[in-house]
């Protein structure tokens, strides 16, 4: 049976031990200009090697939360701590990926992947990372494409390259903002399984923002359900389906139960 832990102010679910890598305490965000409270007090602990998802209606402050976690925006209150150090801006140990692959057409796949190194440490350091970049291409199944320009990559392949670019700095946490939602559904399912494989292989600590309930459930150890504005966690749901997950598990009654549970939360929210 799935362990469903109720949480008013989201309490880290029991049964998930491991060192906390990324911790948020009492994080809120108010946009003074428009006087909008985008985010109510949010508490969150991402444990090492776990996959967490956040799901909620549009405008619930998911993107705001992700921007705060990426160091792109300061919170209005609360503390944001990664690996024991407060996040006060963008950091090399934060890996990020967006809906669009955003590969630059004048760079080859390999040059795109080492871009974060080139920006932070210069051209020589980037060149020194070429071997590692090739290994990452192997990891995501893009071997042989290092000298190809992005215009020749399909949407799914471009996102694989974006995964490599995110991993090249060896980040402590991966922040994913609907990474495959621009792909067709078949590619998307496939890429989600690939993502799971890569995360398991690297014991990555991952945080995913998504609109898709099945995607959140099939990928995550914990799914955080968010309320509409001001955003806060209504419930943290532990998914105890065994790893590695397969797409067949989507027909598992436990899977259906979890999806149903999350959907009922979101439906309630929609009619408030």
């Amino acid at each position, binding site marked *: 049976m799935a362990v469903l832990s109720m949480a008013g102010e989201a309490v880290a679910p029991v049964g998930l031990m491991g060192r906390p890598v990324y911790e948020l305490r009492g994080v809120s965000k108010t946009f003074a200009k428009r006087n909008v409270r985008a985010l109510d007090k949010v508490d969150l602990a991402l444990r090492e090697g776990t996959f967490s998802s956040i799901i909620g209606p549009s405008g619930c402050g998911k993107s705001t939360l992700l921007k705060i976690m990426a160091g792109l925006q300061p919170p209005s209150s609360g503390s944001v701590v990664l690996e024991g150090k407060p996040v006060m801006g963008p950091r090399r140990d934060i890996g*990020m990926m967006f809906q669009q692959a*955003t590969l630059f*057409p004048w760079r080859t796949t390999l040059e795109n992947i080492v871009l974060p190194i080139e*920006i*932070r440490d210069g051209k020589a350091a980037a060149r020194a990372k070429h071997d590692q970049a090739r290994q990452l291409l192997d990891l995501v199944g893009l071997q042989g494409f290092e000298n190809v320009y992005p215009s020749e990559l399909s949407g799914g392949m471009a996102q694989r390259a974006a995964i490599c670019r995110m991993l090249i700095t060896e980040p402590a946490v991966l922040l994913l903002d609907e990474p495959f939602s621009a792909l067709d559904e078949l590619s998307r399912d496939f890429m989600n399984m690939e993502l799971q494989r890569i995360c398991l292989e690297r014991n990555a600590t991952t945080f995913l923002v998504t609109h898709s309930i099945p995607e959140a459930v099939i990928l995550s150890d914990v799914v955080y359900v968010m309320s509409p504005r001001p955003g806060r966690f209504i419930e943290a749901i532990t998914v105890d389906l065994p790893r590695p997950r397969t797409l067949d598990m989507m027909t598992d009654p436990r899977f259906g139960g979890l999806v149903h549970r999350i959907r009922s939360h979101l439906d309630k929210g929609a009619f408030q």
Partner: protein
Amino acid sequence: MTQAQVLASAIPEQTVWAERVSWIDRVPRWLSMLALLIGFLIVWQIVYLIELVSPIILPSPLETIEDLFVVGRNLLTGDYMLMALWITTQEVLLGFVIAVVLGFGLGVLVGETAFGEKAVMPYLVAINTMPKVAFAPLFVSWLGFGIASKVALAAFIAFFPVIVGTAAGLHAADQNARMLFKTMGASRWQTLVQLKLPIGMPHFFSGLKNAAVLVVVGAVVGEFLGGGKGFGELIRVAAAQLNTPRVFSLIIYLSLLGLATFWIVAWAQRRFVFWHKESVTEETLAQ
């Protein structure tokens, strides 16, 4: 009869039908261009023969073609017309370089800095709305009747599209790309050089193409109004002598100069912005 046989006979074996293809799609490009040119020349010849327009104003196409050879021979033998063409070419090239450097610098100022956008841009727009040709006498009195005043007018007329192209290009990077650069901790300089300038290259080059055309206009107008020894002066003199075939053939050779500058820019774009494929229509309309 089995059921399968019944089904098979119930429908015809083939329902192939010919897709309609417009005849113009089957004609190669060079042929349609040539046909249009010949048609134009025929209409021109008819207008000349029935004297719809006085022959003093409009020469016959044959006269014009004849004069094309006369001027061509003069150019090839390195006579005074070649000297004139060389002077105009210098004006065009210098004017173009100045327009590009100035336009790029101002474009970066306007597109990248808040000061440029808020304080400088309104003045540039105001200057652009002025009839720039009206500045020609001023440039002559400042810089004399030599090449400098023509270069100044050419650059002045051509630099604005470069500003617009550069500034528009700097705004071309989308939200995702900017956010990505932020997460990588890129400095403002890195974001400019590694992201905004390369992404803006297609816009920059369409500004350059506009400038390549305008710079010839500026040089010739400068010669009309400020004398000198360039091609524009030859045209002015030929027109004053009512030698209309000569005017036509000089204009045709002058347009080759404009075509050459445009072509150099187009070549540079294909070379340096290899990732951006422009369609022929786009390229032509960019003028």
